[in-house]
C-alpha cells in the first residue's frame, strides 16, 4: 500500500471505531478548523505543547477565537472541555493512534475531558502495530508509558448496550495533518 492508500484505510478504520477524522492540508489549517469544530463543546481547552502546536500557532488562534487555554498547573485538564494532544503515529489496520505518553500532561489531556483532539501527521500513518513498535525500538529506549487509542472510551457493561464516554472522552477527533497542500486527505 502506498501512503495515500494507508491514509484512506486508516481513516475508514478510525471512523468505523467511532472516531471522527478531519483532514487538513497543513499545520496552518489546524487552528481555523478547531475553532469551527470545537465551539459547540465548550470554551475550556487543555493544550499539550508539541512541535505541531507551535507550528500551527494553535494557542494564539484559539485564544483569539475566545477559547480559554490552560497549559499547566495542579488542576491541569480536570475542568477542561477539550484536550488537545499530538500523537506520534496512526495505525491503519485498526484505525489506532499511538503515542509515547510518558509526559503526564499528555495522559491527563487525552483522558479527563469529554472531547479529545488528536493531532497526527498524515505521513506518520503506518500499516500495523509491528511497524510502530519497530519505529519506537529504533529510537532507542522504550517509552515509560506507551499508549494506543482507538475511538472514544466505551462500555457495553449494562445490557451490552454500547455507550461512549464512560471514563475517558466521549468524542475523539483526529486531525490528520497533511504536508501543506499535498494530497493527504485520505479520501
Amino acid at each position: 500500500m502506498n501512503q495515500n492508500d494507508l491514509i484512506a484505510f486508516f481513516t475508514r478504520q478510525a471512523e468505523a471505531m467511532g472516531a471522527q477524522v478531519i483532514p487538513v492540508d497543513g499545520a496552518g489549517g489546524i487552528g481555523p478548523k478547531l475553532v469551527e469544530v470545537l465551539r459547540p463543546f465548550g470554551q475550556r481547552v487543555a493544550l499539550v505543547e508539541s512541535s505541531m502546536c507551535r507550528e500551527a500557532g494553535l494557542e494564539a488562534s484559539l485564544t483569539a477565537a475566545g477559547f480559554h487555554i490552560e497549559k499547566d498547573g495542579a488542576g491541569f485538564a480536570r475542568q477542561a472541555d477539550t484536550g488537545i494532544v499530538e500523537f506520534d503515529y496512526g495505525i491503519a489496520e485498526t484505525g489506532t493512534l499511538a503515542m509515547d505518553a510518558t509526559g503526564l500532561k499528555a495522559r491527563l489531556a487525552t483522558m479527563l475531558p469529554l472531547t479529545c483532539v488528536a493531532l497526527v501527521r498524515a505521513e506518520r500513518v503506518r500499516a500495523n502495530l509491528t511497524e510502530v513498535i519497530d519505529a519506537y525500538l529504533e529510537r532507542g529506549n522504550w517509552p515509560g508509558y506507551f499508549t494506543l487509542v482507538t475511538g472514544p472510551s466505551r462500555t457495553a457493561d449494562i445490557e451490552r448496550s454500547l455507550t461512549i464516554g464512560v471514563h475517558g472522552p466521549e468524542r475523539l477527533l483526529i486531525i490528520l495533518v497533511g504536508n501543506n497542500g499535498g494530497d493527504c486527505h485520505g479520501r
Partner: protein
Amino acid sequence: MAGKEFKQRIHRALNNASLRGALGRFADSYIVSREQVYAGRDFESLRQRIAAIKADAAGRYEELAERFTRAVEARGGKVFRAHDAAAAREYIYQVAKEHGVTDIVKSKSFASEEIHLNEFLQERGINPHETDLAEWILQLMPGERPSHMVMPAIHLPKEEVARVFSRYLGQPVEPDIKNLVRIARRELRKKFLTAGMGISGANIAVAETGTIVICTNEGNARLATTVPPVHVAIVGYEKLVPELKDIVPILEALPRSGTAQPITSYVTMITGPVPAWRDDSEGIKELHVVLLDNGRTRMAADPVFKEALQCIRCASCTNVCPVFQLVSGQVYGYIYNGGIGSILTAFFNSLEDAAEPQSLCIGCRRCAEVCPAKINIPDLVLKLRERVVTKQGLSSGYRIALHGVVARPKLMHTLLRAAARLQGPVTHGRPLIRHLPIFFSSLTEGRSLPAIARAPLRDRVKDLERPLSRPRLRAAFYSGCVIDFVYPEIGEAVYKVLGREGVQVVFPQEQACCGAPAAYAGDRETAVKLAKQNIAALEGTGAGVIVTACPTCAVALKKDFPELLTGDPAWEARARIVAAKVKDFTELVHELTRDRQGSSGQPLKESGRALKVTYHDSCHFKRHLGLDRVAREVLNGQPGLELVEMQESDRCCGFGGSYSIKYPEISRPILERKLKNIAASGAELVAVDCPGCVLQLRGGLDQMGSAVQVKHTAEILAIED
C-alpha cells in the same frame, strides 16, 4: 460428586430468566461477530504462534521473572514476588499503609479477586473502589456473583442497575443506560482524582523491557495508572512473555476472541515509574509490580496442566460453551469460569474446589475449536476429572455402575438381556419409554428413552455374516454398547451396506464396552481394563479394518487406548496396531464409493419428490474425527435425498453419555434448542453418525410428538432404492 448446594446454584441460574436471556443473546451474537472480526485472518496460524510463545514462557518462568524484575528495577520500579495470596495481600497492604492511603481506585484484575484483596483491605480500613463499570455495579451489590469473566454484570437489567445507583446516591435514578453511565463517570471521577493509590492487573508482562500491558475499553486503567501517585500492578506469572514483539499476536487475538473487537479502545503499556502529580508538584510515580505465583509454578511443573497456562483470559471458551450459556459464571463459583476456569481453580485454589465446576463439561469440544491459545480444554478437564476421582474416589453410584458392571462385560451383557425382558411394563411394547417411575422420572422428562432391544446385535450376527465369494476387504465390526443392545438395527444396516460394497464383516464376540463412560467419569482403572479386553478381542480377528459406527467408540479405540496403555510394555504396541486399523463406518463407505460420488447426481425416486434430510454434526464425529464434510458427501451421493442444513448443525444435542443422567436439567434445554433448529429446517429426517445422538434426538422428538425421524447414516444408506 455434585453436592446439594451446587445443584441449588444450577437450579437458581436456570430459573433466572434475565440471566439466561442476556447470556443467550450474547452467545448467539458472539458467534457471528467473532467470525466477522476474524474474517480474512489465518486464525490457525495466529493461535499456533500464541501457543508457542506462551508454552515457551511457561517452561521458564523463573528466568523470565528475573529478567522482568531486572528491567523494572533498572527503571526505578519495585517487583515483589508473591508466593501465595497471603503474601501478595500483605505486601499491597503495607504499601498502602506506608503512604497513608485511605482510598484506592482499581481497574479490573482477576488476580486481585483471586487473592480476595478487597475484603482484606476493607477489614483494615482501606476502601478499594472498582472502576470498571460492571465491577463497580457488582461491588455495590454485596453477595451478587459475577456471571461472566469479561462482562461480569451482563445478567443485570438496567432497572436493577438504576435501583443499585439510587440506593448509592440516596435519590431516584432513571433506568436509562446513557444516564447510568453518566452517573458512573461522575461518581468514579471523584474517586480517581482523590485516591492515593491505583491498582491494576495486566494482560501481558514483557520480560525484555519490564513492560506491563493493559487493555480496557472504558479507559479506567489509563486513569488508575495516571492520576494517583502510587501504582500497584498484580501480575500472574502466566502473563510473562519473553519479548516485546510477542505481544503483537496476543493483542491481535485477545480483543477479537474476547468481545469480537479488532482492538480495545485503550491499550496501555507501562515500563517503570512515570511522572505523576505528587503532593503539590509533578514528581515520579511509585510503581510496584506484584508477581503472583499462587499455584502457577506448580502448574508449570505439571507436564499435563502446564498447557492451561497458555490461557490469555479472553473467555471465548465460555462464550461458545452450551453449558455456560445456560448456567453462567454464577454457578462455577470462584473467579475463573467454564472448563478452563475449573482447571485454573484446581491449582490456584484446590482440587476439591474444582471438583464440581469441572463436572459441568459435557465434552462437546467447541471450546477447543475457538481457543486462541490452542488449549485442549476438554481433554484437560478429563485429566482433571481423573485426578479428582483418584483423590476423592468415585461416587457410590458411579462405582457400582462402572467397577461392578461396566468393567465386567459378561455380567453387563447378562443384565442388559434381563433388562430387555423385564422392561415390559414401562415400554408398553413400544420402542421408546415415555415415562419412568418417580425416582427416575427426570430421565424421561423432555425426552423418551429407548427400550433395550429384545435380541442384541451380538445374537443376530450369525444370520448376518454370510460369506462373500470374493470380498474386497475383511472388516471387524466394533458395535459399541448402544448399537449392540439398544439399536441393533443400526448394526444390521452396517452389515447390509458394507456387504453390498463387497466387505466381509465379522463380529468379535469378546468385544466389550469401549470404556468411554468410565473415562468420562474419571475412572481410568476401568478404562484400562476394558481397553485390554477389547484389544485382545479385536486383534484375534485378523481383519484389515476395524469398523465402528459410533464416534465415541472410534475415539476410544483410536486415541484413548494407545494413550491409556502408553508405557505398558505388554500392551502399548498392540494398542497402536489396533488403533491404526480403526475406521468410522461412514468414512469407510466414503472411501469405497469414491469413484461413484458426484457421477450420479441426485436422481429422484420414480415415485416422486426427494426426501428432505438435515444433518446433525455429532461432537466427537466432527471435532475428534473431522468427518463432517465426508458424511455430507456420502449423503449427497445417495439418490432420493435432498440435504438441507439446519441452523447450528454442529451444536451439541445435550446427550454427553452419562451427562444427561447426571445433569438432566442442563441436558434438556440444550436438547430443546437442537429440536427447535431441526423443526425450523423443514426436514423430514435427521441424519446422524452417533448412536448416542440418535438416542437423544429420537427421545426428544418423540416426546414432542414430532413426525420427524432420526436415523443413523448407516440406516439411511441401507434403504433399498
